């Protein structure tokens, strides 16, 4: 359940268990339906499940937990 501070490198909190969530930015659609390509603040890319949020647009920031986006970070920039 930890919030991953975005200015820190990964690995200081519970990186896998996942109760850590990461703020990632949408770059574009993923290789399969329901997935989107996202990047972390360091530019590392990964494909993320976005089925819980409905359509996402490039540039949006998402809170990602265990490979799935669980919330939009609308108020955060």
């Amino acid at each position, binding site marked *: *359940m930890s*919030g991953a501070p975005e*200015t820190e490198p990964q690995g200081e909190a*519970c990186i*896998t268990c*996942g109760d850590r969530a990461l703020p990632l930015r949408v770059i574009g659609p993923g290789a399969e339906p329901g997935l989107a390509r996202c990047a972390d603040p360091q530019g590392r890319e990964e494909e993320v499940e976005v*089925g*819980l949020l409905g359509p996402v647009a490039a540039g949006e920031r998402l809170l990602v937990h*265990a490979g799935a986006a669980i919330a939009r970070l609308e108020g955060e920039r």
Partner: protein
Amino acid sequence: MRYVEEFRDAELGRALAARILSLAEPGRRRKLMEVCGGHTHVIYRYAIDELLPDEVEMVHGPGCPVCVIPMGRVDDGIAIAAREEVVLACFGDMMRVPGSERSLQEAKAAGADVRVVYSPLDALRIARAEPEREVVFFAIGFETTAPSTALTLKRARAEGLGNFSCFCNHVLIEPPLRALLSAPELEIDGFVGPGHVATIVGARAFDFVAAEYGRPLVVSGFEPLDVLQSVEMVMRQLAEGRCEVENQYGRVVPSEGNPAALAALAEVFEPRETFEWRGLGEIERSALQLTEAYAELDAERRFELPGARVADPVECQCGEVLKGAIKPWECRVFGTACTPERAIGTCMVSPEGACAAYYNYGRLSREEQPA
């Protein structure tokens, strides 16, 4: 300024600490429980405990999913991994959790095919890439993590992937909270509530804490100022004689939760009759299992498991730490026989565990603590 820095501003932190002090009743110690291991980690990492007045004591709750896994379930995971045809995929933090005889890491060293993944989807990808292997995902986590597992199981079912299954250890937050709140020896005045679980279940899911047990709860974010502000909000409720559920993390947490995630959970999982929690014992309907419709993806039906209940090592006091009855440094093996490098108890394994948070941020020995 980066947005995140506003949540770490030292001046604002000191101002919040002063407000908390002004809300404290001199000489009356309030015990507040942070339910979530992520908050425990933030509190020690940023030394929030040292900013708080003596009248506020933070007690650490059972919200670290690694810490609450009982040894018997680790043994079951190792039994699955020991099968010739199996790849057991798990989150990294599970690797060092001790079973009755060994951990998954030690099982891997002995030849079992155990692989660390970052998401259930990664486990599914292994199953696709290696159709000749049986890939089993060792699922752990609260309602925050379970939707990701649910989506992956839906994918696996839609694809008809025959070599993928899930060893489900997902747990629910409400039953252990009720168990804690019902315990006569527990003296908790209020709660800092788990923000990420609340993104799924909604802030309102915690209404029972105030309505049925008469304790205020503030759903909190994970930056240092989020936690301080949440403590201030709980202290303000106590000072004003209010008892409500408030949402400090409103920028992320909706009051009703995430409906798509709740629907996915309801489709794929159902509550187990009972589940053993490390330190808390058996709690009814406190964990999830796959529904009948997903039976063929259920590793517990696919493989024979020992299913034994294994008592915690006698020297380990994780149970009392998880209930907030003792501080980590009060455990008889803290920092001596039990360290993050070689943990006896689960609370020392995960960085979100209370013992590891104390140990990693310099609360090393009981001698250094005030009496």
